[in-house]
């Protein structure tokens, strides 16, 4: 219990003084997480919609695999990306290991299946409702794809936020491929892990509180914007 009070006090102090290390870590976390989710959405939204709209050999298998990939253990992903990016590995020439880019790559791999699977379900349901009318108007699956993504924008926002949540919580994979290097690849979650391993439990918990508050703020803004857009006449 004492740790929790100490944690709250630490969190308040860090925020109030705009602790320089904290600001640096927070900015890096935001950069890595938002970039990952942006890339994952760029891939996952059209991919999920395509899985929903087009029929092709192996479609059902693909859907099952994408769903299963949502449960990819992060540490496994981290390990695989590490082996790929290491100098001893196939992509070593790019020297990407232990960089924010490597962390983004790992997170994109983890987040894309989530966005893809949720998009697929959303678009499939919408296509069920709209298919006849859209085809009647002259829009086949390809033409309907962007339309349905826009139609489902509220549900898809939730999917993207789910992806963002996943990215924000990630610690195992980014630790392996980023190296938790001070001032370079140290983000909120890896810092919390490090401070815990140093026995600085109050500090670790304080950072954790800040992380949760940030997450709430992001999600709250998303919902407020979403609701106000919903209500205004287009």
């Amino acid at each position, binding site marked *: 219990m004492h740790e929790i009070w100490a944690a709250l006090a630490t969190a308040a102090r860090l925020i109030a003084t705009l602790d320089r290390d904290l600001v640096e870590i927070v*900015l890096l976390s*935001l950069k890595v997480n938002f970039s990952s989710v942006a890339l994952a959405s760029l891939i996952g939204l059209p991919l999920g919609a395509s899985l929903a709209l087009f029929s092709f050999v192996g479609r059902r298998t693909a859907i099952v695999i994408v769903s299963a990939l949502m449960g990819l253990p992060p540490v496994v992903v981290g390990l695989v990306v590490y082996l790929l990016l290491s*100098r001893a590995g196939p992509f070593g020439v790019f020297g990407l290991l232990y960089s924010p880019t490597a962390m983004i790559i790992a997170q994109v791999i983890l987040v894309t299946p989530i966005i893809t699977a949720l998009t697929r379900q959303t678009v499939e349901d919408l296509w069920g409702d709209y298919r006849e009318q859209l085809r009647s108007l002259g829009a086949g699956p390809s033409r309907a794809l962007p339309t349905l993504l826009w139609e489902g924008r509220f549900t898809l926002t939730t999917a993207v936020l789910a992806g963002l949540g996943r990215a924000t919580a990630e610690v195992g994979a980014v630790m392996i491929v980023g*190296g*938790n*290097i001070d001032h370079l690849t140290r983000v909120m979650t890896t810092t919390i892990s490090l401070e815990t*391993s140093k*026995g600085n439990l109050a500090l670790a918990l304080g950072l954790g509180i800040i992380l949760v508050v940030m997450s709430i703020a992001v999600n709250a803004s998303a919902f407020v914007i979403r609701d106000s857009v919903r209500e205004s006449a287009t």
Partner: protein
Amino acid sequence: MIRRASLAFVLLLALSITLGANAGSHEHIVLASTTSTDNSGLFDYLLPIFEARTGIKVHVVARGTGQAIRIAKDGDADILLVHHRRSEQELVAAGYALARHEVMYNDFVIVGPRGDPARINGMHDAVAALGRIAAARAAFASRGDASGTHKAELALWRTAGIEVDAAGAWYRETGSGMGATLNIAAGMSAYALVDRATWLAFRNKGDLAILAAGDPRLRNQYAVMAVNPARHPHVRAAAAQTFVEWLTGPTGQAAIAEFTIDGGQLFHPNAQEAGR
């Protein structure tokens, strides 16, 4: 009103992300080291001094010794700083690293619960102390992760003639770094072997305290090596060499000696001593 505030927040976020991009084109080297060294805070103290002096940023990747060595072998680091002599010598012999330079030493200590069920408090014979712990079947938290600390621990058990593989439930292998292992030891009131630097810097000691220390077999020697550019042409050999020379030179050595926690010196520089 809320909507405008949220939009402002989102814009601020977007701005911060673009601004948060790291500096970039500083000269830098990658140092693979151990979690024990990093967790002690030595690098936070030492490296800014080096950077101020030479303009070279040092990126520290801290892992267990085994993994740090692997990183150097793979060419993912330019410098290696670990504390297991035999592994270091093998690396040089196999051509992965240039010469091995001793840098500093400290010692391992045996910590345990103040209740001390194995009665080892005050002992200076580490091997005998471990013998008593085994005899009392008192809980012992081992790192179990092939790190330098773990290997040192295993060497002591071997000297004591105790087969830890066949040990009972009292011997707990955590498979984790030093800090995590200490957290577990504190949580279950177990004994553990830890390097003094990590112990002094550790903030969750709980009920644990140093019970046995001072055995010459507990000496923990650190050495620094540059990765061989003949093996990995892409390594930043010149900058790595600068670091090795600085660390073993007068300024680096003095800085090491100056690093203290609560008045206690954590590492003793010994680069001048003949070492191989």
